[in-house]
């Protein structure tokens, strides 16, 4: 909300207070101030000129050559194209060198052969209005030669208050409310404002019927003897300063009262209203064309102002077009009302019609403000148009009650919550400065909350404590250590696990953490063949097609491959994040939450004849085994994955990791797969790519332990290599099992180092070669041990139709 420094000065004496100091104090004691700007600073450079003469331009019918007196020196010659310029006028002159809004620099010029030094400005050129019909003839007789800003009292500062910081303060949505705070802050008096209604005539008042709980008070008052004309300049200037466009006197005064007191109001053209006014809820299917020309389709929740059952206004939001004030009117009906904040908020939000009025009503206004606003408007208008008459008493209907309330407060409560040693006298004084009534008995106060703070704002003792705190100033509160018995916070297994995984991955595994958005675009779901799964879906997405909340971190990781592969040949990414499963919703409807580690590794395809474990899947498998070991899962079972696989997994090149859980079913830790070639094509990933998804939830459930230390061998071991020629379909795992069994406890380590297919093998077979280490804890092994081992191995191999080859 914008505030004018000058406007505040109408309510409280600001002499000696700089705008900067005002902003500082408001920030520290009242509300967040977002900005402070001088109003139209260029007006300080524009001078009041007196047009001495306007002569026709010798070469152009539409141009005039003016001689303009600027108070000092020779009068200037200025060529001016406006039709309304005439001798005797006071005008705004931008001299050579001045820069006007829009970076418009005034230069000495020759216009059709006649020299022109300076420009006589229109309102639009000065950014004071839209009117470009001629130059701005200054009102009154401002001093010639003075800056326009000063001569017309346009030197002002504009404060921008952060609306969010005054959401709870309905009273601060007008200049007078803020002036009340300023008066308290600077110890000055809030100037009295006469808001009483002038005498009214004996005419018949307009009947008003309220048929809805959404309106607690409605005041209607007939006005006669008014004219539609431009507002006086002081009023236009105030409105301009706070960013309102002056329209005409009636609209301007209505806005002025709203921005002054914070109470919206509306003027109807009396001739376009019927004999009565009703306030009711809309009927389904009812429509209203509002002032902005929009046809509004209404719902029963919307509040309507009607006249003889015809809708004439959308209560608290906007008036109706059909009852708007016409330029030739002299009779008006003024509406000042109190509407139910939440109803107004809902209507304005639904119709996309948030107005200055609705923004105020939705804060829940003080109903006692209604007659005051009516009186203020009538008095303001009458001061400008003394012909104004009030033919009849106002109608003032409604079931409103004065919200003024009392709250009990103990001085000790204040001291304990703020943590500052304030005596009772200081507490009472702080509240009284803000117009709270305080009566004291012992250490207790009974605090009377004035109506303008009482509707929703101040309802509890803590609300009053805040008033005391901000008035005294929070700087007065000393910092204090929070003492408590502190035991170490409980261990957080998941957080520890996440850190271990992250550290291991970012370290030796050389993976980069790449978090993705929680929303997955539909095309990505299609590309990763996961679009058929149920997803939590946002009903108001920022971008069409990005409404789904992810179930898994994998798709967003996969989406990052192609862009990175354009920069480099190898990409290793991971993310630990959350996924949401709507099919696992709890009793309250909240979806199931899963915690997942996603990894992907994309690299150039291995060259022909490269080692069997050079490919991405084998490398990622190595990473996963290391990772699982690092978090205490030492020998997970890894087996070909059957059944339902995620859409991105290669249907035949996938393995599942499982591990034992204490006293329960083995846990499915997750999946490692080659990227499905169809997904790779969709995502334009042209690389050997492996993907893994591990469930942190399953990892936390499974047995994780510290592996006990194995004694360092004291006796020399025997190293040997063996190879098997085996049919193509023989899994390496079965050979490892064979070796393990033949080892009889002497097998210290075994490592597959070569898988060979080639001419010196029978067709349809392969050779797998292993490095072995045989070792005993209590003796040095001898030739005989090795011979016996090989014999056992040979027998076992032969039994399975395999050929053992020593190398």
């Amino acid at each position, binding site marked *: 909300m914008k505030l004018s420094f000058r406007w505040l000065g109408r309510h409280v004496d600001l002499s000696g207070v700089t705008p900067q100091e005002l902003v500082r104090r408001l920030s520290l*004691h*009242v*509300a*967040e101030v977002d900005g402070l700007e001088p109003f139209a600073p260029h007006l300080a450079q524009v001078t009041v000129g007196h047009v001495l003469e306007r002569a026709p331009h010798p070469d152009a019918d539409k141009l005039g050559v003016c001689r303009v007196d600027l108070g000092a020196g020779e009068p200037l010659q200025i060529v001016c194209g406006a039709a309304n310029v005439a001798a005797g006028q006071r005008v705004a002159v931008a001299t050579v060198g001045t820069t006007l809004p829009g970076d418009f620099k005034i230069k000495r010029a020759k216009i059709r052969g006649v020299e022109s030094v300076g420009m006589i400005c229109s309102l639009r050129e000065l950014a004071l209005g839209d009117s470009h019909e001629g130059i701005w003839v200054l009102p009154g007789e401002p001093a010639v030669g003075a800056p326009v800003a000063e001569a017309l009292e346009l030197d002002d500062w504009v404060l921008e208050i952060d*609306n*969010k910081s*005054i*959401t*709870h303060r309905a009273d601060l949505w007008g200049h007078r409310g803020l002036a009340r705070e300023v008066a308290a802050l600077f110890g000055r008096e809030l100037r009295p404002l006469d808001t009483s209604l002038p005498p009214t005539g004996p005419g018949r008042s307009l009947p008003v019927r309220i048929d809805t709980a959404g309106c607690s008070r409605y005041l209607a008052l007939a006005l006669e003897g008014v004219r539609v004309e431009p507002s006086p300049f002081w009023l236009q200037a105030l409105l301009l300063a706070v960013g309102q466009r002056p329209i005409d006197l009636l609209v301007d005064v209505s806005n002025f009262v709203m921005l002054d007191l914070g109470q919206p109001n509306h003027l109807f053209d009396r001739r376009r209203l019927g004999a009565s006014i009703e306030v009711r809820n809309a009927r389904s299917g009812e429509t209203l064309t509002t002032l902005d020309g929009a046809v509004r389709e209404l719902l029963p929740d919307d509040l309507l102002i009607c006249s003889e059952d015809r809708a004439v206004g959308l209560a608290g939001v906007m008036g109706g077009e059909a009852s708007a004030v016409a330029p030739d009117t002299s009779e008006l009906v003024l509406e000042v009302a109190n509407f139910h904040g*939440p109803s107004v*908020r809902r209507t304005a939000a639904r119709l996309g019609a948030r107005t200055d009025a609705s923004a105020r009503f*939705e*804060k829940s206004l003080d109903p006692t403000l209604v007659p005051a606003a009516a009186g203020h408007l009538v008095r303001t208008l009458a001061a400008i148009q003394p012909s104004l008459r009030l033919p009849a008493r106002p109608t003032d209907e409604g079931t409103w009650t004065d919200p003024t309330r009392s709250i009990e407060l103990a001085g000790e409560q204040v001291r*304990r*919550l*703020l943590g*500052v040693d304030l005596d009772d006298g200081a507490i009472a004084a702080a509240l009284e400065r803000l117009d709270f009534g305080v009566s004291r008995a012992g250490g207790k106060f009974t605090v009377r909350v004035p109506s303008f703070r009482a509707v929703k704002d101040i309802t*509890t003792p*803590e609300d009053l*404590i*805040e008033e005391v*705190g901000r008035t005294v100033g*929070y*700087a007065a*509160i*000393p*910092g204090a250590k*929070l003492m*408590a018995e502190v035991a170490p*916070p409980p261990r957080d297994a998941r*957080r520890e696990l996440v850190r271990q995984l992250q550290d291991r*991955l*970012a*370290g*030796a595994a*050389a993976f*980069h*953490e*790449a*978090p993705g*958005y*929680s929303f997955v675009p539909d095309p990505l779901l299609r590309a990763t063949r996961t679009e058929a799964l149920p997803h939590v*879906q*946002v*009903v*108001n997405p920022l971008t069409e097609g990005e409404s789904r*909340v992810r179930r898994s971190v994998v798709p*967003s990781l996969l*989406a*990052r491959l192609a862009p*990175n592969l354009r*920069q480099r040949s190898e990409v290793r*990414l*991971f993310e630990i994040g*959350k996924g*949401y499963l709507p099919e696992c919703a709890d009793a*309250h*409807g*909240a979806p199931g*939450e899963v915690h997942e580690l996603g990894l992907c590794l994309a690299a150039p395809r291995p060259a022909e004849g490269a080692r069997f474990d050079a490919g991405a899947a084998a490398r990622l498998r190595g990473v996963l085994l290391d990772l699982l070991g690092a978090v205490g899962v030492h020998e997970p079972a890894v087996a070909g994955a059957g059944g339902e696989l995620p859409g991105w997994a290669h249907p035949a090149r996938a393995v599942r990791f499982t591990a034992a859980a204490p006293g329960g079913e083995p846990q499915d830790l997750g999946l490692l797969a080659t990227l499905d070639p169809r997904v790779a094509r969709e995502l334009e990933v042209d690389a050997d790519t492996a993907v893994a998804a591990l469930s942190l939830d399953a990892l936390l459930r499974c047995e994780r332990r510290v592996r006990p230390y194995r004694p360092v061998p004291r006796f020399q071991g025997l190293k040997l290599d063996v190879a098997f020629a085996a049919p193509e379909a023989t899994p390496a795992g079965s050979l490892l099992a064979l070796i393990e069994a033949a080892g009889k406890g002497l097998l210290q380590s075994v490592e597959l180092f070569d898988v060979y297919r080639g001419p010196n093998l029978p067709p349809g077979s392969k050779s797998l070669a292993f490095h072995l280490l045989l070792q005993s804890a209590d003796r040095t092994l001898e030739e005989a041990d090795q011979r016996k081992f090989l014999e056992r191995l040979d027998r076992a191999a032969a039994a399975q139709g395999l050929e053992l080859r020593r190398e």
Partner: protein
Amino acid sequence: MTDDLDPVAIERSARERLATAADEAALRAIEREYLDKGGVIAGLLAAIPTVEPARRRDLGQAANRLKAAVQEGLAARREQLRQDRLSAELAAADFDPTLPGARLRTGSLHPLTQVRRQVEDIFLSMGYRIEDGPEVELDYYNFQALNIPVDHPSREEQDTFYCDREHRLVMRTQTSPVQIRAMERLVPPFRLIAPGRVFRNEAQDATHEHTFHQVEGLAVGFGVHVGHLTYTLRSFLEALFGRPTEVRLRPGYFPFVEPGFEFDMACSFCGGRGCRVCKQSGWIEFCGCGMVHRRVLEAGFAGRTDVDVAALTGFAFGFGLDRLTMSRYGIDDLRHFFGGDLRFLEQF
């Protein structure tokens, strides 16, 4: 007498060869040529019977002297070459101190993770526990229990993503719902932080994201007051930045605290004198905070017979992790955080 039977000539020639032998291979060649079976000296000895008897003895002695001389010469030359190599090694003429090392390839932790860990570690050291809450949250926790009823005007300002037509489920707009979830489970006194993702339906640009990161803080106990709040946040900031930091409270409005504050820290760029970063104010907004609203305590501990709600007070705060991270590394565009570009990620 020919030269190949003249020990003196042989020795001269051997010495010349030794003097110019440049490496072990050359020395080995000389060794073979002179000392091996069938070598020059062996030939000399073999020739002894062919000379006249009177010279045989002299020639034999001369041949043995020659053998010893060649052996000594070889040893001396070997030592010389070893010394030369050592000198060359010590002189290190090929040493280029600017030659780069072999690059160690590691991965990286996201900058937000790094700053978040630091924040967590500071609060852990201050006795805080770390809590977590769902990103898809019930309206009850995100709004209602936080004293933001259905018709509250501040809902309008939160730009909420709703996950169903009835608006029962939302993408959480703040980490504050974790306050309620924690109160439901824990017994006071306790203190916690809850870092995590939050969501606002806002168009993206360099400084706005629909997904960003907050750290919620909550301390509930007996006699907790505003002074504890300022002390705690100030201690945290001083630990984070590693230097004394001026702080201040201003009035602020958040429905779930009363009184509510904006918490500022002195601008580190200008030391509080006023600059472009702090918009000349000397202060930088750090977070919103306040004393936990009575209605929030009542909602969070509702139905708890083991907790005397009336006796409890608490403070809460919530700050953004994104801006802290951006200012630490000088990152100028929020969109990098979720961009997944390795050219960004591998810098951390």
